[in-house]
């Protein structure tokens, strides 16, 4: 009996599987898959193409009748009409026929990116889907010239008892009808035009709501998200400015905010454990108050802009993970971290960021630092090295920390000898360090000397080449 440990980097080749992209296929594997897997595969294929597959073979003849997810779209991935002659008429006929000829009633998804549709036809299809107890509805308009379509959802959709997931894109919600979605768990509004009161009523009509995404929705001024069942929420402004945002969710665990609002109130969300503030417009004091008001906070992500933040403090007894990001914007940001139970600290950005940690216990902390360098031609000057030394010296990692440091080029870490003589080692106690770079340097010996100057107490040093992704 052979025993194999699974190592991080084993490749398939070890198992004798070569890259056989071009090799001939002899057996029809696809047709042999069980129906549930075929359905799963076809849920990623436009319904028109699935219907056309009925002439593949006897096996495929009736498959489309029972696929649980339907996707209707009048244009293909190239933006061309799917039906060449009389595209609108042919598309309408196709959807009608398709819905009518289905044997089973469990319409599951219903994506209609439409562009040239009459709202009457769409109303009919949606009503049909609701009558068949559709569980998930994904309705995306693709307006040609403007951002929103003035299509008004039929009242039946906003009162569909079976709906668990509702995604709307590029539509207008005018709030003229009542809302009752007792089973709705997940709601996503992208590019939807609505005003404050409509949002309020919508959420009031979703007593089981768990997830809520509000993205690029115009028309809102004082955005209030109020739901006692809500657990996960994401608000993305994307150049749509909200005057104020207030979230009232006693059970909210996770919130992501991406925008520039400078008036965010989370005082009624005491249960938040994960908070991400990506480019908020909050200043030092408001940010500190906000974090202070979340006693259970465990994971915090902040994108700091020097335009709003100068020197702020992060406090939290339960904070386990902190992620900080900074843009290239010129200007220094300082942060003082007071989190005795921290186990993970990540930073991504330039060197003009001062991180200092108070009350550092001997936790096993992992530090993950990605330096975006703005050095263009790979010529790192004295300024670069001085800034980097200052940046590193500020972070007072304890000896138990394992730090992984990512820079673009190994060259960026080869500190000149004259600087090493006059500066103190930035991390005198650190024992474990990992370096990741895209560009290895010829001067391996110099790199090691330099890194042992950074941390003279090093016990393990790993230097690796980054293979995937960008900073």
């Amino acid at each position, binding site marked *: 009996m052979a025993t*194999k440990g699974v190592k991080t980097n084993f490749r398939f080749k070890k198992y004798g599987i070569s890259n056989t992209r071009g090799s001939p296929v*002899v057996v*029809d594997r*696809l047709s042999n898959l069980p129906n549930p897997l075929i359905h799963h595969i076809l849920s990623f294929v436009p319904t028109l193409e699935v219907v056309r597959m009925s002439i593949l073979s006897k096996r495929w003849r009736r498959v489309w009748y029972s696929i649980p997810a339907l996707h209707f779209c009048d244009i293909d991935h190239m933006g061309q009409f799917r039906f060449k002659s009389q595209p609108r008429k042919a598309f309408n006929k196709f959807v009608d026929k398709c819905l009518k000829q289905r044997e089973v009633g469990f319409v599951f998804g219903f994506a209609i990116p439409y562009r040239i549709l009459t709202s009457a036809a769409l109303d009919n299809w949606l009503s049909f889907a609701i009558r068949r107890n559709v569980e998930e509805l994904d309705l995306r308009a693709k307006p040609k010239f403007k951002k929103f379509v003035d299509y008004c959802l039929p009242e039946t959709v906003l009162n569909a008892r079976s709906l668990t997931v509702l995604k709307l894109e590029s539509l207008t919600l005018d709030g003229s009808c009542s809302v009752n979605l007792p089973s709705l768990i997940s709601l996503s509004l992208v590019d939807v035009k609505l005003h404050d009161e409509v949002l309020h009523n919508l959420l009031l009509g979703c007593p089981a709501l768990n997830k809520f995404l509000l993205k690029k929705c115009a028309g809102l001024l004082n955005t209030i998200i109020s739901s006692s069942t809500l657990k996960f929420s994401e608000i993305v402004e994307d150049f749509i400015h909200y005057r104020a945002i207030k979230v009232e969710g006693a059970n909210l665990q996770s919130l992501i905010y991406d925008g520039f609002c400078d008036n965010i109130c989370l005082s009624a969300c005491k249960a938040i454990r994960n908070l991400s503030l990506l480019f908020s417009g909050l200043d030092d004091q408001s940010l500190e108050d906000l974090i202070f008001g979340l006693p259970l906070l465990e994971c915090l992500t902040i994108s700091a802009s020097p335009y709003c933040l100068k020197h702020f403090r992060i406090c939290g007894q339960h904070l386990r993970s902190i992620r900080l990001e900074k843009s290239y914007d010129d200007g220094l940001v300082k942060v003082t971290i007071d989190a005795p139970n921290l186990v993970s600290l990540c930073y991504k950005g330039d060197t003009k960021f001062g991180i200092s940690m108070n009350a550092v216990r001997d936790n096993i902390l992992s530090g993950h630092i990605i330096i975006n360098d703005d050095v263009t031609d790979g010529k790192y000057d004295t300024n670069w090295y001085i800034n980097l030394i200052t940046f590193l010296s500020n972070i007072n990692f304890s000896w138990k920390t394992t730090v992984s440091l990512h820079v673009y080029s190994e060259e960026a870490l080869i500190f000149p000898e004259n600087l090493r003589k006059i500066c103190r080692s930035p991390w005198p106690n650190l024992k474990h360090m990992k370096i990741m770079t895209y560009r290895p340097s010829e001067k391996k010996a110099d790199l090691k000397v330099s890194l042992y100057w950074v941390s003279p107490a090093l016990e393990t040093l790993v230097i690796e080449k980054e293979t995937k992704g960008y900073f």
Partner: protein
Amino acid sequence: MSSSSTTTTTTRLLMLKASDGVTFEVEEAVATKLGAINNMVEEEGSEDLICLPNVNGKFLGMVLEWCKKHANNNTNSDKGNDEVNKWWDKEFVMDLDQNTLYHLLMAADYLSGTELVDLLTEKVASMIRGKKVEEIRETFKIKSDFLPGQEEEIRKKNSWAFE
């Protein structure tokens, strides 16, 4: 200077035995990315050896490699990991031949590796999407077993989809 890994957390190790007798030693946190294993671990409690008679060692190894990558990347609270995972997934499915894809999909489904099933089914779907029927036949070596005229009949019946 050593370049050993510095992971200090100790987790329980499970032994997974494939149909051909090959066994894999994996951390519990990795193996429980698979719903089926998770259930077994919860049920049987202390049993550390799990036999999987429906999965060949070759494919079990690949499934576990995927699990390991995702378990690792998820513990690290790096938001950029989403990106990294996507890159990694893309590469994982890029050069799979259909035979491997088939067995891997069956294995992932049997082991209830929901996310992996999603990844693999989407990969198959990408090989179908945008192709004409003839091209799909060619790609997957699907042989038409219709009687003469039968195909034409279906085409006519569903003419609204073939215009």
